[in-house]
């Protein structure tokens, strides 16, 4: 009876230190919801009990049902026959269980049948489920479609679309990518036009659409004929009726349970969600915070599974008269994996809470504006939070998804030849992890997205405050190391700025972002080490390793390593 929540001490540690007071106060309308819904909490303590029990339920379903089906789902994959997409048998069963458990709309509001849980808990759910089956989270996470309609749709649209997501009758798809518009979404061509009756219709192609067979699509479409950039794009919702044709599903390296579709829209009737021309510049950008958080949670769950497999195998496998766990080189890999796993989790939940409170305050701001009440204070706070989220969401995704690739490969390594075989789950985990640093923005794009905030040192006050604190025992030494990393960062930053060369800055950005992430993550784990003594080991290894890595990052920048870009054409023959 494995429970993927209760057996995970580190996740429970984070749950117990979540301070969701402000988030829940807004989310639960000061606990007024209890008057309308018998399953709403009475107060903060009650809410936390509900959330803990919800995660226990998620852990139970993940550990006892979803995990056991994952190998079958991977082997069978989603099918495409006669124009129709069918999920693997295990995926179908997962969807049924999740619906019966009321989790299909866990993040959706109660008036439309949802559980109304905070994003932070939704992310913990994604992590737990991904540990069981990474591919399932792709479909599960698409309740976000209904959540976007909740945020930007009209009351009529909300009543029309959201309830069936909550019951699990409907799933959704987010149709952004096109054959010629991947990372560059401004190039979207799919046309939305109004027919003589004023009905919006969609015409064109979308590609690489996760769960493109879903029942409701949100489609990024060009409503402004003749426009070329992002300002001509709007978000439209449509049902997956006969006019939407799945042309094919992709044959992928991993996440086989999640069907990736090529879609053709043939004058599909649709309706505008939110305002015209805001499709990319507002709604898609907004969506990206959540999508990136979700992918990071997915990657972390896969990492957890890979780590568990590696540890179990190392303790069972005997060579040279002892378990390989006793071999220092193997144990060292396990330590590295564990530290990456736990620091990844620290970043995930720090950023999840940040995005969570940001979204709650955005909702509150709208309400204050509508009621004609003063909102300046919240507005200022929101600006600050958005700046942080703009920096930290891409850093989170970059670090956790790259680490997930590393951890799953290390897990194969610990298994040796066995890990290369299909009979063991670790090769699947590595294949599933491989997409996480690609989709919802590649790692390279995450660096582009975060470099502005890094150059502007927007966490400066935070770091100053944390550096000035006194830490107990040996932790003060780690604070000194972090100060040293900061100095290295400032020197490297100055070097790049002084050089005043855009090409150089583009390639040096990776090192700068990494440097900044060491300081940010380092202070997170230092704080955790003050609360739990076991975490001192994690903080120590993370910060000591980061100092060594920081010197390497600085060296790449200052050694003018990147100047050979000028000769790239000669080298790249």
């Amino acid at each position, binding site marked *: 009876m494995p429970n993927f929540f209760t057996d995970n001490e580190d996740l429970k540690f984070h749950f117990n230190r979540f301070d969701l007071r402000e988030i829940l106060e807004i989310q639960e309308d000061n606990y007024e919801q209890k008057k309308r819904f018998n*399953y709403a909490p009475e107060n903060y303590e009650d809410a936390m009990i509900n959330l803990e029990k*919800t995660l226990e339920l998620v852990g139970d379903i993940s550990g006892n049902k979803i995990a056991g089906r994952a190998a079958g789902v991977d082997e069978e994959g989603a099918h495409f026959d006669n124009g129709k997409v069918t999920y693997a048998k295990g995926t179908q069963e997962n969807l049924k269980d999740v619906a019966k458990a009321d989790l299909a709309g866990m993040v959706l509001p109660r008036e439309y049948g949802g559980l109304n849980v905070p994003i932070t808990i939704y992310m913990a759910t994604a992590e737990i489920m991904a540990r069981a089956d990474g591919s399932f989270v792709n479909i599960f996470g698409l309740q976000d479609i209904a959540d976007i309609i909740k945020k930007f749709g009209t009351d009529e649209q909300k009543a029309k679309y959201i309830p069936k997501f909550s019951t699990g009758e409907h799933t959704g798809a987010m149709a952004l990518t096109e054959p010629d518009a991947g990372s560059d979404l401004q190039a979207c061509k799919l046309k939305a036009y109004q027919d003589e009756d004023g009905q919006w219709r969609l015409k064109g192609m979308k590609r690489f659409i996760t769960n493109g067979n879903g029942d409701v699509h949100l489609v990024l479409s060009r409503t402004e004929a003749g426009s070329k950039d992002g300002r001509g794009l709007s978000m439209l919702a449509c049902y997956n009726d006969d006019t939407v044709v799945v042309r094919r599903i992709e044959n992928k390296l991993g996440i086989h349970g999640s069907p990736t579709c090529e879609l053709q829209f043939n004058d599909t009737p649709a309706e505008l969600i939110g305002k015209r021309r805001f499709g990319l510049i507002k709604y898609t950008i907004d969506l990206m915070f959540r999508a990136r958080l979700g992918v990071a949670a997915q990657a972390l769950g896969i990492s957890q599974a890979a780590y568990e497999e590696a540890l179990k195998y190392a303790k069972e496998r005997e060579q040279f008269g002892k378990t390989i766990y006793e071999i220092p080189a193997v144990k060292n890999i396990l330590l590295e994996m564990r530290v990456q796993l736990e620091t990844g989790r620290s970043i995930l939940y720090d950023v999840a809470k940040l995005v969570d409170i940001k979204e709650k305050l955005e909702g509150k701001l709208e309400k204050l504006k509508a009621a004609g009440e003063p909102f300046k204070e919240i507005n200022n706070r929101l600006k600050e939070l958005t700046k942080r989220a703009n920096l930290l969401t891409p850093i989170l995704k970059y670090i956790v998804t790259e680490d997930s690739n590393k951890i799953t490969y290390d897990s194969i390594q610990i298994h040796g030849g066995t890990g290369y075989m299909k009979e063991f789950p670790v090769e699947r985990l590595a294949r599933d992890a491989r997409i996480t640093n690609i989709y919802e923005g590649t790692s390279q794009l995450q660096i582009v997205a975060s470099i502005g905030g890094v150059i502007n040192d927007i966490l400066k006050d935070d770091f100053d405050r944390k550096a000035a604190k006194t830490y107990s025992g040996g932790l003060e030494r780690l604070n000194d190391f972090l100060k040293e990393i900061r100095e290295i960062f400032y020197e490297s930053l100055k070097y790049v700025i002084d050089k005043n060369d855009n090409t150089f800055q583009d390639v040096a950005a990776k090192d700068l972002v990494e440097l900044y992430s060491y300081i940010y993550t380092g202070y997170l784990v230092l704080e955790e080490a003050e609360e739990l003594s076991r975490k001192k080991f994690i903080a120590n290894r993370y910060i000591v390793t980061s100092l060594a890595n920081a010197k390497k990052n600085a060296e790449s920048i200052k050694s003018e390593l990147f100047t050979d870009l000028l000769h790239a054409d000669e080298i790249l023959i």
Partner: protein
Amino acid sequence: MYNSIVMVKQVPDTANISGKVMKDDGTVNRAKLPAIFNHEDKEALELALQVKEQYGGTVSVITMGPPRASDMLKECFYMGADKAYLISDRKFAGSDTLATSYVLSEAITHIGKFDFVFAGRQAIDGDTAQVGPQTAEKLKLSQVTYVEEIKKVENNIARIKRKIDGGQEVVEAQLPILLTVIKGAQEPRPFSAKKIMIYKSAKTLLDLEKIANGNSLLNLDELIHEHKDKNLYIETLSTTDLSDIDVSKIGLHGSPTKVHKVESVVLSGGDAVKIEPTREGIGSLIDELLNDHILG
């Protein structure tokens, strides 16, 4: 519309035993063991919920056990049960299957009309598989054992698939009826998160008594009333409520089964013996099995 009563039991988790769990009188010291929902009873509840979904009606669950059995009753709510009954009284302690089925049959009669009584085939602590059939006898009900599936209910006749040696058979029986459900019949549904959030605060009479005793500002009757209003009250029945009950037939002295001694039998294997696939080899194997009275 068909109303069902499901008999459920909280059992010691026999897969995770540690320490001294048998008392000197040969009964189980339940306080020493983690308690879980007997799995076949959970499958019985699943079957009852399926009947409710398909034909309408209500599902009540009933258990005879100590106060902490309320945890399991709450889990029944989480799955979709409408009403729960805890049959609890010190006088029931030490009951064997005969006494237990007597109490349960009295309690079921007390609860009222029903079309189906469901039970798991057996509980993992006693493994007797007697309580279901004995309860049916006492209630003068037809019974179908080893049930896997209810295929159809029409005009008060249920068509039921049951497991038999080497296969299955489909039988028909007139309602009301008692069914015992076998492991693997139907996978129990996951708990509903909403129901967890609602019923996590469901209370038995015993729970409420404890709360009221510990706080002079609280009044037991008011607490009961308040919990009943919110549908968060687990009906609690004792010998006082079951007024027709014959107390000589319950508890340790109402139980003809006496456990005199419990032994822990450790099966130890010896060294492996290799037998050549020849006439001689097989002959000597047969002789050895005959000598050990394994064949004979």
